[in-house]
């Protein structure tokens, strides 16, 4: 059996228990630098309207950012690329930097409520993926979680074909009109309690497509989203971070 002898001479990542070098080697997000001052051209440089002004400083919404890096190239002293892969959040507002309002208290409440719902998911967790109008890249990055590098089975995470057995709905895409009904049917078929994860900037806000005649600006009007994973697409590490956040396996609860 030649394949059996070949095996897998590859190293599975130790993430999240130990940091992964590769995880920090590409552009996972873009953020305003502390002390950055607002300039009127900043709004124009962003293709998705992710950058707005707030008390004389630029504010960046990761939920709209497609990580094109254009703001960094144009205003290198105001924005920087961020390699940290832990980009997911439990509150939509927490994706905005600097924050819209004090999110700490709300975050604590949300986390406690989520913890009650996922309490029974100690060992193994089943995920149902639904594509609600993605560009196809999110599916590659989700599928990568099964490759030997990320190998999420080691964390007790599995994908399931049946919504009845799903603990997590992992939803991608800008909310295409044609998927609204299938999405509703999937939600109705899923046994409560379950957690909804919006995977990717498209799922959060519609991304570059935003709202159009055929897209609903993401899936959050259709579904009560619990975890938000920005990125266009988010990398497998960011998706994994979002899933672990959903399961309360990250004590600190993600980025500010």
């Amino acid at each position: 059996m030649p394949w059996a002898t070949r095996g897998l001479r590859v190293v599975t990542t130790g993430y999240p228990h130990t940091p992964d070098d590769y995880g920090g080697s590409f552009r996972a997000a873009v953020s305003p630098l502390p002390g950055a001052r607002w300039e009127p051209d900043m709004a124009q440089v962003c293709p998705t309207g992710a950058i707005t002004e707030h008390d004389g400083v630029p504010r960046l919404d990761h939920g709209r950012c497609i990580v094109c890096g254009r703001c960094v190239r144009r205003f290198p002293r105001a924005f920087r690329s961020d390699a940290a892969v832990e980009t997911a959040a439990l509150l939509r507002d927490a994706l905005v930097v600097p924050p819209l309002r004090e999110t700490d208290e709300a975050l604590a409440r949300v986390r406690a409520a989520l913890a009650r719902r996922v309490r029974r998911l100690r060992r193994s967790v089943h995920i149902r993926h639904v594509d609600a109008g993605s560009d196809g890249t999110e599916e590659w990055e989700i599928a990568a979680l099964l490759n030997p590098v990320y190998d999420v089975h080691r964390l007790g995470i599995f994908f399931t074909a049946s919504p009845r057995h799903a603990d997590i709905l992992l939803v991608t895409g800008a909310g295409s009109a044609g998927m609204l009904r299938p999405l509703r049917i999937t939600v109705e078929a899923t046994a409560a309690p379950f957690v909804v994860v919006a995977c990717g900037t498209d799922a959060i806000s519609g991304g570059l497509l935003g709202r159009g005649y055929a897209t609903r600006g993401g899936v959050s009007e259709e579904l009560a989203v619990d975890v938000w994973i920005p990125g266009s697409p988010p990398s497998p590490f960011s998706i994994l971070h979002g899933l672990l956040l959903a399961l309360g396996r990250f004590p600190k609860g993600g980025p500010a």
Partner: protein
Amino acid sequence: MSAAVRIEPLDTPEALVAIVAARVAEGARLAALFVAGSSRRPMLTAAVAARAELALLTAPLEAAAYPALSPLVPAAAYYERAIHDLHGIAASGVVLNPLILPLPEGAERPRPGSGSSPAPVEPDEHTLPVHVTGEGTFTLPYGPVRSGVFETIEYLVENAGEEILHLWVRPFYKHRGVAKAFEHRTIDDGVLLAERVEGVASVAHAVAYCHAVETAAGIEVPQQGAWLRVLYAELERAANHLDVIVRLCEAAGLAVANARFAWHKERVLRLLAALTGSRFGRATVVPGGVAGAPQLAPSDAARRIGELAAAVSADVIELMRTESFLDRLWGTGVVTPEEARAHGALGPVGRGSAVAEDVRRTRAYGAYAWGAAPEPRLHHDGDAHARLRVRVGELEDALALASQAVDEARAGRGGVRVEVPEGVSGRACGWAEAPHGEVLYFIGLEDGRIHDCYPRSASFHNLPLLPAAFKGDVLTDFAFIEASFGLSPAGVVV
């Protein structure tokens, strides 16, 4: 480059249909049929490819109908359905079942290119035909929400016992209105959207879009930039071909091979990320060239490509010796060379059925025009096995070419980018050979902004060949046939 495109304005759709049919009868291939934008009147546009030339025939549409082309050129059928879905303009004399946007009779159509601002649509499944099946046959729906991590698409599989009698494809679920979404954007924003038309071929779509813009602007990408585009495009091709191999191994339950090829694919994406900052090479190809020099030293890039090529090739040799696996592919999902030629099949689907079309050679663009394009990997059997052999051959070629591109880019002159002049106007067409085959972009620019844009993916063009490939295949062949086509639903329902 623009010399390869010839514009032929005609007075009526009748003339257009007659000329296209005559050219196809002489051996040309229908590359696209669509309605191009003009605020005043829609123009029926056909792209006809013959050897090194792409002819664009246009005719004003004065009525809500035009004579159908598909009875003469069957490859036009899905285009006619898409035109009806988007514009409400009908090809007369044929049945136009909804394909990419099922809307009830009389509903407002989005009409991309017309300057309209359509209200949100509600796709209506009741407008789709009900497939009545005979005694002893069943229709199984696969999708739209599918088991496993797949893009949304629905297949209705009519079968009698094990044998598949017919397949219907319903891709409309993820229609996102992308053509309309291009309108009014700046040239620079447009490329970011092109990357999201069919995300797994971000680089190819960006190159095709930029090629159109550069043609309209009359600029030429400098050497170094042109070679870097080849580098990223070939790595993208490698990743996509590996993805197909992974899915075939998965269908066969070949766990170790599956894991190993998935790891190779991951390595390609990591290399792209190291070079460009994005695992899909996004925000890298820009009008005029590429955004910047690679973030990885050429010597490191060359070393990593070399290691990858060696590792991939060892596993490919083993895979192509694994009889139990190849057994599932031999004679499975056959597209005959005649069918492929008549349809103008693109990419590996075409090359697996002896159709040599590859725009890196037939209408060579960028650095491919400098002798870089590899010989087409042609096979004649037209089955899933032939398509696999095309892909493993191209995988080897892609990595070799990526390695050459690293060297050439290092030596190349002229920088990575030229400025696009401000306020470009005009109409132009651009293309690229994506991993799935020829991608076309037809754009109209007005004062530096996009007036209209019609992207045509190879996934869309090849789609009708998928149902045609089920010839006595059984249910357990389904996953192999689907994977061997390697279509991206996002690219299908633009």
